[in-house]
């Protein structure tokens, strides 16, 4: 049996949501992956800025945080074409 301390469900959910947010912003708002950002200048917009861009696009409250409404939109089935850029 795993020796790792079992992750509390809410922490597990939190991790899942963070991953969902990162993947979504990488797919549709050109958030650079960790690998990409390691080699690029540090002036990339952090995740919060990209999250705000997405909230502005969808007319959500611009909090920069993955709140309930924002996560609800991110879970909706959608087109795979990015919302900004080519």
């Amino acid at each position: 049996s795993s020796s790792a301390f079992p992750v509390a469900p809410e922490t597990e959910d939190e991790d899942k949501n963070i991953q969902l947010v990162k993947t979504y912003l990488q797919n549709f708002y050109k958030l650079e992956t960790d690998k990409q950002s390691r080699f690029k200048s540090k002036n990339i917009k952090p995740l919060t800025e990209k999250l705000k861009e997405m909230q502005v696009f969808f007319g959500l409250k611009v909090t920069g945080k993955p709140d309930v409404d924002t996560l609800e939109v991110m879970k909706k089935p959608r087109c795979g074409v990015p919302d900004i850029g080519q």
Partner: protein
Amino acid sequence: YVLTDGNPKWERKNLTYRIVNYTPDMNSADVDKAIQKAFKVWSDVSPLIFKIIYDGNADIMISFETGDHRDNSPFDGPDGFLVHAFQPRNGIGGDVHFDEAEYWTKGSNGYNLFLVVAHELGHSLGLSHSTDPGALMYPTYSYTEPNEFRLPQDDINGIQTVYGHSGNPIQPTGPTTPVTCDHKLTFDAVATMRGELLFFKDRYFWRKHPQMTEVQLNFISLFWPNLPSGIQAAYENTERDQIFLFKENKYWVLSGYDLVYNHPKSIYDLGFPKNVKRINAAFNDENSGKTYFFVGGKYWRYDENRQSMDQGYPKKIIDEFRGISKNIDAAFQYGRYIYFFIGTRQFQFDPNVKRVVSVMKSNSWFNC
């Protein structure tokens, strides 16, 4: 609407398309029809002409793919993102790839192929995603009955910015998305639902909890895919926890998010004479268990317990509801008052003193 970065467009007006393979979810004739109908959405409002070819390279190649299909944009399995398309250019430009892991249909279950193709062709022609939640080019999927579908004005404006108008002498127009705080906002119907308020307009409804400030604009089809747009009257029977929605001479019954009957019922079952073709507004008086139906300048009263119309109706609205003229758009009871909506104005009627005690904007509940 948003044009794709760099404003890519096809220089020719005559474009070809080819359906490279088919999804096993639908019969191929329905796939052909859905795709053809999707192209017509755009050719109707622009000078573009689309022709199907059956082999070789077409400008727009349409295919169903799974997972990593060698275009540097692998699919992600069921749901998530459903499809993608490439902007105008030679080679892969214009092509549309569907994720075969989705369930493609010609109805409201799964994902409606026609609606998704129509959206993707917007990308193939040079449009990006729109921020207008009612636009076809909005990023998230929402179902509309294909026979009721009309290309929204936002999308028409977008494609005509890129390619100009169609040769059609009558310029087609499309539906626009209502703006919550538009002071000219009017409603088709209003009803309470389990303590919330539902304001219906075209294919949308606003959900408002009286104690909350936010108000949410949704597609009716998001909650009830089998309901039509353009609901004309609505009321809640709180005792039975049911909502009755009326359009023309039919009505639907909801219990929460479920349709109680799969098919609409006839208003004549309620006791209306055949010369009544539609209902303008309705509300249920919780205190008496009577439902009031408004048609033109008259109203009927229906006894929910006896499940039949009361005798001696219809009567003139003005005789019972002084200050309320005819052609009411919507009505509902909340607390001791009855709220009547006529155009952009809302009349708060106190049945105890039998008169209007306040006049407000129709969208005053939205805290604009």
